[in-house]
Structure formats: C-alpha cells, structure tokens
C-alpha cells in the first residue's frame, strides 16, 4: 500500500502534493502520473486559474491564481487526483549525450577515481554504462537532475563550491549526475564536458532538451567534439 499523498500549502498561491519523503522509483512514477493527469485536465480546459506545475523528485508543486481558483476547492481536487495513484513514465525519450572525459574537461575525475579506489578508465567505463533517468529540471533553466548513478561512484559535493563552473560541464554528486546548461557557481564533481545545448529560449516549443522521465546515456568522445561547430 502507498501512503496517502500529503497536500502542503506553499503560501497562498501554490500547493505542493508530496508523495513521500524520498526519491524512489515509485514516488517518481506517481509524480509523473499526477503531472500527466494535470496536463490532460488543462488541455480539456478543466483547470481554470491553475498557471503551471513543477514535478520534482517526490512531489508536484502547483502554482495557481487564488483570485480565480479558490484554494479550498483546488486542494480538494488535487487530493482526489493524487489519491488515484496514477503512475506514468514520462515521454520515455532516450538520449545519447557525447561527453569528453579527458584532461582539463574532467578536473575532478582523478579525485573521484582515487577516492573510490578505481582507475580513471574504470570510472569512465561505469559512467558510460549507466542509464540515467531525468528526475527533474531545476536549479537553472534546463538543468537536469539525473538519477541512477551507481553507489560505487557516490561522492559528496565539494566542501567549497566553485565560483564558476563552465557551461557544458558534466558532473556527479551523491547518487546523481547532471550537466550544467550555463556558466554558474556549483559544488558538484566535474568529470567531463559536453557540447550539447540543453536549453535554448528561442526554441519556443521545447526550450529544454530533456523532460522528466527521459533516459540519458553518456558516450565518451574526444576533445575534438567540443570544438565550436
């Protein structure tokens, strides 16, 4: 049996529907199930006043206009919808992302290898054998949290984050992988660099490359692949 989802107020214009305290395959499937249910209702014009919703690891945050959509009424509907226990897997798209794991593009690879008692080659072999799942997008536009990193590569975040991580950096922390779409500060371990553009605001139909539920593999390429096209 699944525990009943919890409905939490996030101010007076958002609710968070929480399926559990942790990320598990089951909570992820229920998060994507609720998101799919909301998308169907909105497409049918049956969610007046609901502006948008954000699927996360274990919950869905629904942002609404409280003057168009009475909060009590929406709360009851969300609870009923979440209680149906629908599960979904997202689009199921599969991506192979080129990553250069060499030299200056992988500044933390050596530290990861020595901390885990592995060779650099063995770390790269494990990374490229992993099938990641996009759990959510956040932190920065298009930034994917990729679940599925093997426990053998688990590493804490850096004690002191770097002030600038270059766009395209491929990183790991905890049991997650990620790719930085933008230059930004960051505390994850940088193990490679990818030339793929994860976000383009002028791609109006789909600005972010990934969506939750997508499957991602990293494929090792040489530094030539990073040269500007």
């Amino acid at each position, binding site marked *: 049996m699944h525990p009943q989802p919890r409905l*939490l*107020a*996030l*101010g*007076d*214009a*958002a609710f*968070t529907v*929480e399926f559990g*305290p*942790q*990320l598990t395959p089951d909570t992820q499937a229920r998060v994507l199930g609720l*998101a799919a249910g909301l998308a169907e209702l909105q497409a049918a014009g049956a969610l007046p006043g609901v*502006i*948008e*919703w*954000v*699927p*996360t*690891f*274990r*919950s*869905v*945050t629904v*942002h609404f206009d*409280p*003057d168009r959509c009475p*909060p*009590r009424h929406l709360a009851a509907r969300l609870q009923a919808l979440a209680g149906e226990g629908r599960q979904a897997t997202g689009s199921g798209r599969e991506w192979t992302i080129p990553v250069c794991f060499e030299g200056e593009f992988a500044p933390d690879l050596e530290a990861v290898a020595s901390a885990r008692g592995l060779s650099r080659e063995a770390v790269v072999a494990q990374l490229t054998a992993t099938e990641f799942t996009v759990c*959510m*997008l*956040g*932190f*920065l*536009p*298009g*930034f994917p*949290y990729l679940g599925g990193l093997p426990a053998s590569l688990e590493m804490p975040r850096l004690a002191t984050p770097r002030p600038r991580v270059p766009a395209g950096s491929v990183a790991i922390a905890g049991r997650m992988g990620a790719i930085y*779409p*933008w230059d*930004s500060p960051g505390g994850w371990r940088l193990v490679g660099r990818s030339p793929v553009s994860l*976000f383009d*605001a*002028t791609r*109006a139909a789909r*600005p*972010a490359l990934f*969506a939750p539920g997508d499957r991602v593999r990293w494929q090792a390429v040489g530094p030539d692949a990073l040269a500007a096209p």
Partner: protein
Amino acid sequence: MSARLAIRAPGLGVSIQDGGRHGHRHIGVPLSGALDPIFLAAANGLLGNPADSAGLEVLLAGPVLEALDAPVRIALAGAMGARHLGSAGTRRAMPAWSTLTLQPGEQLQVGSPRGVGYIAIEGGLLTPPLLGSRSTYARAGLIHLATTLPCQTARGHGSERQNLALSHEDGPIRVIPGPQDEHFSAAALERFYTEAFQLTRQRDRMGLRLAGPRLEHSRLGADIVSDGVTPGAIQVPADGQPILLLADCQTVGGYPKIATVIRADLPRLAHLQAGDEVRFRAVDADEAAAARAALARRLSDWLAGARPAAAGGEPDTATLLAANLAGAAVRGDDPHLWPDSTRPGT
C-alpha cells in the same frame, strides 16, 4: 509610430521587468517579473498602460535615458525622482509619481530609489519577449538591457499626470506556515513568530538574507529532498538564519521552508533595506484573500486619485525634496550587493 529610448548611462541594478515569465518553471526557468508589481502598475497607470506592461526596475541607481526619433512619455513610481535636461540646456526636477514627455534629444537622469523604483514608458517597452515575457533574468542571459529600447511615440502633448506617493501597509509580514514547519523545533517556531529579524546587506533579485535569533531545526534536520519553491518562501539552512526568496529565485530548493509570505505582502519585501527590522505573523488562506483584496483596492483608489500635473512653473521645495536626487549617497559600488552576473549590460 515608433520611437526609441537610448540608455546613456546604465545605472546600477536596472533591468526590464513586466508581470513575469509564467508557465516555464517546470523546466527550471524562474518566474522573474517586477519585485513590486503594485508600483509597476502605478507607473503604468499614470500613462494609461496595462498594469504589467514592461518597464525599467531600478534597485540601486537609475539610468540616464534619452528619447530618440520622437517624443517618449515616461512615468516614475517609487521614492525616486529624476532631472530633466532640456534641449535648450534647461534643467528641471521631475518628481516621483509623475509623468513627463521627453522630446527627441532630451535626457532624463533618474536618481536612486529608496527601496525599488519603476520607470514606465507610454505603451510599454516594446523589446522582443522571450518565453512570453520581456523580463530580464540575468543568470541565464534572458533579455539583456540593450542600449536602445523600442517604444511607442507619446500621444498628444501637455497632458502630464501626477499623484501623491503610494505607500504599502506596515506591520508584520504575513505568512502561511510551512510547507516544512515540522523541520523546526517548537522553540524555533515560537521565535520566528515573536522576535524581530534584521535584513543583512545581502539583497538581490533572487532573495534577501535575514539575521536574527537562530532557528534550530527539529530532528528532521536542515536538508530536505529538493522540492518546489516560489517567491516569498522562507528557507532556513543549517545556520538557522532565514533566506527570503524573491522573483528571480530558483524553481526548486533543498532547505526546509518555515513559512511562505502571502502574495499581498510580496511587494513590501522589495523595499526592505539593510538593517530594517522584519517581523512575521501567521495567517490563513481567508486572511490572505482579504489582504489581496485590500491591496487591489489601495491601488485602484490611488489610480483614481491621479490628476493633471500643474503646467509650467518651477517645482517647489517639497517637490524637489521628494525627487530624491541624492544618487551619490547610495553605495552602488558595493560588491556584496551585486554579483557581476546581475549587473546590467554584462
């Protein structure tokens, strides 16, 4: 007919803002939009614009603007005045909460706001929108402040308007408890709702850091599996000092949120200055709805009070004082306030 507004000096903490970039938070794009949408609506209202037409938001020091090609009508809202440099070398103060038409070649030097100020342009800024909004989001390079901004030619002439200052309510900032109030000890919750916090110097469009009594976490701890956040959410990391999120905040966060500011009080947060005292009071959804209605009434009453500006003549001392032209008094160069990524034009 179109005109352009040239930015001759960028000021500091100046960005283009409208009602925000709704509908893209699921892909990590922050909401953005005016920190004080009521003041933006006031500036737009003086010009007959829709409330959320795109204008310029000023956090630290106003820009120097020049009309190109055709006359451009401008309105100011907030505790922020300006100096009008006429083509014949005339200099006149433009008070806050008024409109003025810049003829081609004329310049407007906008001062420094106390809190946040807005410059609205008749017809709104006509810069190309991105993902449904003209708002700047500097961290991902969405909408840089260009050196010339397209806008509409001023209609008619001599119909400037002015109004008294619009003020926000005072008293404690109203919040809805949670969503992670169970991550705090009973003593911490008591302190949060009874003691005062001070705004630190760390303030930008993403958030404000407060200092005050340490808010200890319960045995559930200071980390959560990241979930959705929104402007107004009050995160408390392990150091026990609250972070108040604002319009450019990330879409998800990993710190427990002790409470979330109601929508009606979000505009007030924009005006907090370092050292200001902040207190919090818990309300329910009904009180939040009443507060939204009261705020909407406050704005509509104010808009109804706008009147034609007195024609000609020199402004009196009170008007000049209200214009707050003391731009040099603001420490706009303080690196703690503005990381490079949020400086306009970089």
